């Protein structure tokens, strides 16, 4: 049981460590910058001058509080956009990369079902997903202690907990592209580009007549600013995201079980 999950999961440890360290540095940088920025610039006036689409895209609210600042700079940008695209991209390589490089035949010659191959490979992506969301809040908390700021621990935990279903959807989009396209580069471009498209859909339609289109976008259901600034947890949205992730993975599996491996 879980032979593939263990194998591929352990192969992600190094990359996960590097990425987590990178985000820790980013957190430290933001937190270190915050006191001087919030003193020197009227961030609220600055935000008010920006178009609504941009405000929506990066959850710009209460930027002169540490909660609003982190929500906008770290979470709206780092988590919703960067990590969203990253997980879509990474999951897009799960199947297509092995097919593309001629390794899939060898895997499927083992006494394993295609379902197991797909599900356990998908599970390996949980390694960076979980580690990032466990380590980063600790880093944030400790960094804030360093500048004599504080933040609600519950809100901090929730902003990461609710990020998990969101990032799973991103990975779900990726794995679907991974089974549909045989060339890894195509699958990764489609998944990353598509996920970025969803993100734009939500932000550019904000405040327009077609704002309802944004309902298709996963980012509509994960709002770090609401969590950190207003302590509002969109549990229903999280449930919806989780359901969408499950549907994407099961659809990918069904497709992979039937397809001719190129």
């Amino acid at each position, binding site marked *: 049981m879980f*032979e*593939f999950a263990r*194998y591929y999961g352990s*192969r992600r440890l190094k990359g996960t460590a590097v990425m987590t360290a990178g985000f820790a540095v980013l957190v430290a940088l933001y937190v270190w910058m915050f006191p001087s920025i919030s003193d020197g610039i009227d961030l609220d006036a600055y935000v008010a001058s920006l178009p609504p689409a941009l405000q929506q895209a990066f959850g710009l609210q209460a930027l002169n509080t540490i909660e609003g600042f982190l929500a906008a700079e770290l979470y709206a940008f780092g988590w919703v956009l960067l990590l969203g695209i990253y997980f879509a991209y990474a999951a897009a390589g799960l199947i297509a990369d092995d097919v593309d*490089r*001629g*390794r*899939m*035949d*060898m895997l*499927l*010659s*083992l*006494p*394993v*079902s*295609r379902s197991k191959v797909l599900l356990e490979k998908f599970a390996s992506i949980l390694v960076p997903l979980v580690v990032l969301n466990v380590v980063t809040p600790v880093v944030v908390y400790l960094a804030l202690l360093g500048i004599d700021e504080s933040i609600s621990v519950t809100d901090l935990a929730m902003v990461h907990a609710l990020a998990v279903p969101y990032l799973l959807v991103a990975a779900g989009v990726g794995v679907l592209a991974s089974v549909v396209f045989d060339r890894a580069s195509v699958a990764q471009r489609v998944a990353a580009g598509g996920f970025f498209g969803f993100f734009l859909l939500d932000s550019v339609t904000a405040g327009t007549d077609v704002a309802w289109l944004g309902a298709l976008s996963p980012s509509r259901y994960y709002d770090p600013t609401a969590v950190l600034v207003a302590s509002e947890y969109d549990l229903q949205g999280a449930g919806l995201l989780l359901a969408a992730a499950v549907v994407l993975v099961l659809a990918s599996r069904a497709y992979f*079980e039937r397809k*001719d*491996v190129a």
Partner: protein
Amino acid sequence: MSAISIAGLTKDYGDVRANDDVTLDVEPGEVFGYLGPNGAGKTTTIRTIMGFQSPTSGTATVLGAPVTDERALVDARERIGYLPANPAFDEEATGREVLDLHASLKGDARRAELLELFDVPVDREIRGYSTGQKQKLGLVQAFMHDPDLLVMDEPTAGLDPLVQRTFNEFVRQEKAAGKTFFLSSHVLSEVRRVCDRIGIIRDGRIVEVASVADVLQRAGKYVRVRVAADVDREDVSLDGVHELTVESVDGGYADLPMATAGGDASDERNADATGTALAELTFTYTGSFDALVDYLDGFHVLELDVEEAPLERVFMRFYDDDETLDVDAETDATAGTEPTRDESTERGDDPMPAGTDAGHGGDA
């Protein structure tokens, strides 16, 4: 029950019909060579019976498991060793890590023994492997769980001759232990050493399934004979001679008793200069040895080579359109494809009678 049974297997890729009504059976305990040039459809058949793709029509079973029934096939794969063409592995992993993964899923009772035999640098990252080393790692994983059936796509590709010999020896040994092999190759002389039967595929169709012994017998012998005589192509009346060429030569037999003119004339193309006519005949021979010996008895024979006909030559016959399906008429059909060019025109116009007793060639 057959180890592999393929019935009417067709795989259509839309633009290409890679397998067209392929039917063959591989019996338990035999080594079956699946032969054909690159692009003939060998890999398509192999990937279909392994369940990587579904047939457009037709059926196949492997160790009794229908290839379209994933559950049955997954169980069967515990007893199958598989080597793809150009095996690829995680480049960042070491050979050991890959073998560990495979071992966790199918076992590795024979890993140590195989690593000894095939010598893979298991502690190095695979990105640093040569083609041959990847191939050897592929062989180790294919055999290490001691499977009953081995399905191997071009197993000796990329191996140096020494390792090829090790592999062939190992296959013979495993066959003796009751293993079944389904090996593809485009090099006949290679599989001929290990296979019991061969199936030949061409443009997606099976054109021949026969025992190697059978094919070798039909292939006949390759004969090269040099006689001290002037031989006309039309005079060679021996039955069972195919692809005959006759060439007048100056073979440098200056030291032979009848070459009295001395060695300094040996650079002349025409044998006239020495007063001796020499001819070299080469042909593929499917008749009896007695008849051949009787025929040659009429000549002064200077050199004689009789070898097994290269299977490539036989192979080419199978690829000749007119003959592909007409197996029984093989001998006759081949005779009809003799080269028509007259290679005997090189001989001298007025050959001098040789000072030997070889003047009555062709009368045997």
